[in-house]
C-alpha cells in the first residue's frame, strides 16, 4: 500500500512567497475524507489516479488532493479517476483476513492491498501453493473477485554492508556506537599484538581523546554483544605541525583505533566487496584482500589523477580520481582543521565515515587511508592518508 509521508520538510523564505508542502495524506486519511475512495496511485505516465466507487463525487477527491497536486505543479483537472469496485476500508479488512489465511501456507510471499488494482493481491512462491492459499482465503470470506493470486519470487534477506552480522568483521561494513553509525576503516594489529580496527576519530563518543567508546556491528539492536572498545584517539591541539591556523585545533588524521573484545572477530586484510564500483549496490559479493599499504609519509604517495576506491555502509563501493593532495582542510561547523588530507572525486554519504580507501592493484588492494568527510552534494570525499594515520596511531599491521 502507499506509505504515508511522516516527515514533512517545509521551507519559508520571509519576504517571499509562503512555503508550500508536497505532503500526501495516508490512504487511510484519504479514505476518511473522500467518500467512495478505493486507492490512489501514479499511472504509467506518472498521472495521479484515484479509484472512486460508482456514484462518488470527483469534487471530494479534488478538494482532498488539491494541495498535493499543486505542489507537483498540477491542476485538479490532471487527476484521473477510475471506477472502484471496492472501498479502501473494505479492502483493508480483507487484506487483514487474507494475511491470516494465506500465511497458514508456507508458500505465501506477500499480501497487499494493491491500490493500482483495487484488489487484494497475494503472492505465492510456487504453483503448488496457489491452491492451498486460494482455499484458505476463500474460507476467510473474501469474494473471488476481490483477490488476485499470482506467482512471486520469494523475498530473501541479502547480506549488505548495512545489515550483515559480519564475523569476522571486514572493512567497509557498518558499525554502531551510541547514537551514530559509521563504517569500519581497516583491521589492524599493533606490534604488541592487539587486534583492532581503525575508523574515524569522529566515529567515537568525542572526537579526539579516548572515552572507551563501545562498538556494535551492525547495530546494538541487531547484535547486542559489543565487539570492540575505543583505545586510541589523540586529542586535537593548537599549533600541531606546520599549517595549523591560530585559534584552530588540528590533527593529521581523523582516525581512531578500537580493540576487539574477541580477537577472532578481526578479518585482517579483508575489505567487504560489492558487485561493482559506482553502481549503488550495497550487497556483499566477496572481499578484497589488502596486500600492501601506501607509504608511511605524511600526505601519502599517491599522485593527483590516481584512481582510488572506498567501500562504506552508505554508498558502497565508489571509485574516482584523486584531485588534490596534502590539503589543509577546515571542517564545516567546527574549529577543526585536518592537515595534509587527500580529496577524491567520488561518491560519499553520511555513514561512510571511517571507510577504507584503497588502490586496486591487479586482484589485490593497496591500503591508502581512512575516509572521514565529503561535500554536501556527495560527489567528493576526503581521506586521511595511511601515513598520517600511522603518524598519530603508531605502527599498524594491516594484512
Amino acid at each position, binding site marked *: 500500500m502507499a506509505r504515508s509521508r511522516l516527515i514533512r520538510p517545509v521551507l519559508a523564505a520571509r519576504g517571499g512567497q509562503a512555503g508550500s508542502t508536497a505532503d500526501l495524506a495516508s490512504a487511510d486519511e484519504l479514505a476518511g475524507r473522500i467518500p467512495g475512495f478505493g486507492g490512489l496511485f501514479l499511472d504509467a505516465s506518472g498521472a495521479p489516479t484515484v479509484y472512486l466507487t460508482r456514484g462518488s463525487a470527483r469534487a471530494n477527491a479534488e478538494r482532498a488532493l488539491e494541495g498535493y497536486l499543486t505542489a507537483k505543479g498540477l491542476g485538479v483537472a490532471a487527476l484521473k479517476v477510475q471506477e472502484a469496485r471496492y472501498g479502501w476500508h473494505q479492502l483493508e479488512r480483507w487484506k487483514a483476513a487474507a494475511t491470516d489465511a494465506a500465511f497458514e501456507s508456507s508458500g505465501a510471499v506477500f499480501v497487499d492491498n494493491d491500490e493500482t488494482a483495487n484488489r487484494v493481491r497475494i503472492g505465492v512462491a510456487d504453483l503448488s501453493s496457489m491452491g492451498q492459499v486460494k482455499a484458505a482465503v476463500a474460507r476467510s470470506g473474501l469474494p473471488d473477485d476481490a483477490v488476485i493470486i499470482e506467482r512471486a519470487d520469494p523475498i530473501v534477506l541479502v547480506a549488505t554492508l548495512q545489515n550483515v552480522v559480519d564475523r569476522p568483521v571486514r572493512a567497509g561494513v557498518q558499525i554502531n556506537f551510541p547514537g551514530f*553509525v559509521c563504517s569500519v576503516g581497516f583491521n589492524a594489529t599493533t606490534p604488541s599484538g592487539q587486534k583492532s580496527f581503525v575508523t574515524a576519530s569522529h566515529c567515537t563518543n568525542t572526537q579526539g581523546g579516548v572515552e572507551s567508546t563501545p562498538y556494535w556491528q551492525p547495530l546494538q539492536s541487531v547484535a547486542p554483544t559489543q565487539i570492540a572498545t575505543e583505545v586510541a584517539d589523540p586529542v586535537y591541539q593548537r599549533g600541531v605541525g606546520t599549517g595549523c591556523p591560530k585559534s584552530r585545533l588540528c590533527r593529521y588524521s581523523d582516525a581512531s583505533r578500537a580493540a576487539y573484545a574477541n580477537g577472532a572477530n578481526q578479518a585482517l586484510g579483508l575489505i567487504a566487496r560489492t558487485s561493482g564500483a559506482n553502481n549503488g549496490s550495497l550487497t556483499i559479493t566477496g572481499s578484497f584482500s589488502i596486500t600492501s599499504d601506501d607509504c608511511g609519509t605524511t600526505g601519502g604517495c599517491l599522485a593527483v589523477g590516481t584512481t582510488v576506491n572506498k567501500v562504506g555502509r552508505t554508498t558502497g563501493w565508489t571509485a574516482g580520481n584523486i584531485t588534490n593532495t596534502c590539503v589543509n582542510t577546515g571542517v564545516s561547523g567546527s574549529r577543526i582543521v585536518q592537515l595534509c588530507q587527500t580529496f577524491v572525486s567520488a561518491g560519499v554519504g553520511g555513514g561512510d565515515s571511517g571507510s577504507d580507501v584503497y588502490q586496486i592493484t591487479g586482484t589485490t588492494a593497496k591500503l591508502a587511508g581512512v575516509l572521514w568527510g565529503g561535500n554536501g552534494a556527495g560527489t567528493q570525499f576526503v581521506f586521511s592518508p595511511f601515513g598520517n594515520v600511522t603518524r598519530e596511531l603508531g605502527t599498524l599491521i594491516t594484512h
Partner: protein
Amino acid sequence: MPLVFTVANTGNSPVTLYLMGRDPTADFQVTDHQGRQIWSHLRGRVGMAPLRLLPLEAEQRLSFHQEWNQRSDTGKPVAPGTYLVRAILLTDQPGGLASPPASIRIE
C-alpha cells in the same frame, strides 16, 4: 534575507532520522528561473560523514536558520528578478530530504 527550514514529524509516532554529520546539517540553494544554481550555503565546504540516528517525536520539529545576502557564489549581488530557494536536509539518501521550492523576488 532570512531563510527558515523546518522538518516536522507530522505522524503520530516517533521516527528516527538518519542524518549526515555529528550535528544535523541542512543546505540552502538558490536557483534562477532557468534552473541554474546561483548560491549554495554548503558550496565548497567539507563536512564530516558519520550518520547520526536522531529520534524525532510526534509533532516535534527541527529548524534550520540561514541568512542569504542576495549574492551569488561568486560574491556578486544578484540581478533583480524571481528566484527559487529550497533547503535540503543531509541524510543517508542521495539528494537528502528536500523542501519544495519557494519563490522569492529580489527588487
